[in-house]
């Protein structure tokens, strides 16, 4: 669980976006699964104190390498950006419950911004001779999308569609618009009743169209987007898995610091640990409005 791994590469992808690709050699690659993350000690001193969770975006078992992508968000990731090839990093992991790997049918991936990173690992892991994979991806604009991963997507040879807020690339608008069209195309989207919230239970799901149609959805991105994706999937009766983020301390399930609220099948509220019970959850069980 605790590994000292060697930095093979730690490189900025593009000036504007402040995104780095980090390749690490060690033993995490042996067991990592798409959707899991590693918990990284940045810096060698007591400040910053806590480890930083970064999703596994690529798993190269033969080479013993994992690939991570990260955005410089604050002090910790800035320190991480200063690490050089040949140095080593302390990793805890791989941690968490990853995505379900479908073995047949169709897998729709929905990514918001840098939420695409863990989905790279999923694309790689799925047997694309058996499963049809399509990626829907939204971001602010062309520059961002180019910087973050268009190239990677292209190299993966996966079918994809993009949306950008300013229309500079792909369809103007949100990635959830792409998803809605996709579901419409499939004819599985139940028209909204206007009766409000379908979330938090299966109750609102009128029919199991999506599941029957043999496709499922996996999504990663900002919370608002994941909520919208879940709503659409409920309307479409499609299984949906979402990867959540929460501030973390231990990363192993011991501190109860990283919880999200879920509604269990019997309707009771429960707090689950994003680090251990997730980060991937069934979208339907997540209580999207957390109040008390």
């Amino acid at each position, binding site marked *: *669980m*605790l590994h000292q791994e060697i930095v093979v590469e730690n490189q900025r992808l593009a000036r504007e976006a402040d995104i780095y690709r980090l390749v690490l050699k060690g033993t995490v690659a042996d067991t990592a699964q798409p959707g899991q993350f590693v918990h990284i*000690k940045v810096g060698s001193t*007591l*400040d*910053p*104190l*806590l*480890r930083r969770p970064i999703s596994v975006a690529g798993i190269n078992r033969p080479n013993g390498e994992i690939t991570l992508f990260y955005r410089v968000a604050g002090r910790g990731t800035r320190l991480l950006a200063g690490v050089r090839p040949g140095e080593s990093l*302390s990793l*805890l992991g791989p941690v968490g419950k990853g995505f379900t790997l479908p073995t047949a049918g169709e897998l729709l991936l929905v990514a918001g911004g840098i939420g695409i990173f863990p989905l790279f690992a999923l694309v790689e892991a799925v047997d694309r001779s058996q499963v049809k994979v399509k990626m829907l991806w939204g971001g602010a604009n062309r520059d961002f999308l180019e910087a973050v991963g268009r190239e990677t997507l292209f190299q993966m040879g996966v079918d994809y569609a993009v949306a950008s807020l300013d229309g500079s690339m792909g369809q103007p608008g949100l990635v959830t618009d792409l998803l809605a069209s996709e579901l419409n195309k499939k004819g599985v989207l139940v028209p909204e009743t206007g009766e409000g919230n379908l979330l938090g239970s299966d109750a609102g799901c009128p029919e199991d169209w999506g599941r029957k149609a043999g496709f499922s959805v996996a999504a990663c991105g900002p919370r608002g987007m994941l909520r919208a994706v879940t709503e659409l999937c409920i309307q479409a009766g499609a299984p949906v898995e979402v990867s959540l983020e*929460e*501030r*973390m*301390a*231990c*990363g*192993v*399930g*011991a*501190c*109860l*610091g*990283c*919880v*999200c*609220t879920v509604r269990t099948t019997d309707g009771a*509220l*429960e*707090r689950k640990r994003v680090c*251990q019970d997730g980060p991937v959850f069934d979208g339907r069980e997540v209580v999207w409005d*957390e*109040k*008390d």
Partner: protein
Amino acid sequence: MKKIDLTTRLGPLELKNPVLTSSGTYGFGEEYRAFFELSRLGAITVKGITPLPRLGNPPPRVAETPAGMLNAVGLQNPGVEAFLTTYLPRLEKLNTPIIVNISGFSLDDYGLLASMMPDHSCIAALEVNISCPNIKEGGLAFGTDPKSAEQVLAVTRKNTKLPLIAKLSPNVTDIVPLAKAVANGGADIISLINTLLGMRIDLDTGRPVLGNIMGGLSGPAVLPVAVRMVYQVYKAVSLPIIGMGGISCWQDAVEFMLAGASAISVGTANFINPLAPLEIISGLEEYCRRKGYNRVGELVGLAHR
């Protein structure tokens, strides 16, 4: 190489070494099983248990601070019944003394919790938490008023034969009267410190970071405050002390023992380095060897010479 005697006596409680892990930072032990053989620990203190199950506070529950962290978990726990039926049997298998941290919202709660804890299991002691800052209904209030603190200990004492550890809050003007009060109430051991009350505000939202607004500060940042309180309590009260607050390496552990702690407990540091407790055990041993001590117990309180 000289063998150092690491056994540690805390009043009625005898441990194979003085390195414990702290309540709320070590789950129910199992979470750290992947890292090493947990039976090597002096003892494991489990998450605070309340009479009824608690969902705890809404997220976010943690925030980082300079060399420290805030938490506002709010005593999420399965409640005493589920603890006894589901968790205790699993704890038995860890082959380590277990200290159960108990938290109540009334004197009756404490009495009830104490009376329900079996005294022939892996449970080696009860840690009476009168100092949790993350709940509105009580907790901290018991820990800041000597009279209430004494009553909590007295009622707990009446309901169990297990060794009793009173866990004190640092959020007080003077720690000594509290320490004296819990001694009078019947505590066998004093543990300190719990977390310091703190908060952070998010610059983007302009709102407090934590769902519960305020939370408890732990980690290296609080170490000097904790060492000071251990020093003060050692001077004023004759009960053995379990020192904690910011311990992340053996040097910190030695500091606490010199200040007067008979045992120490590792909390937040587990999150950064799960091997910290083991490293501390061997560091303590090595330090004793270098300094010519035979027993780790010889360190206790030396700074008071």
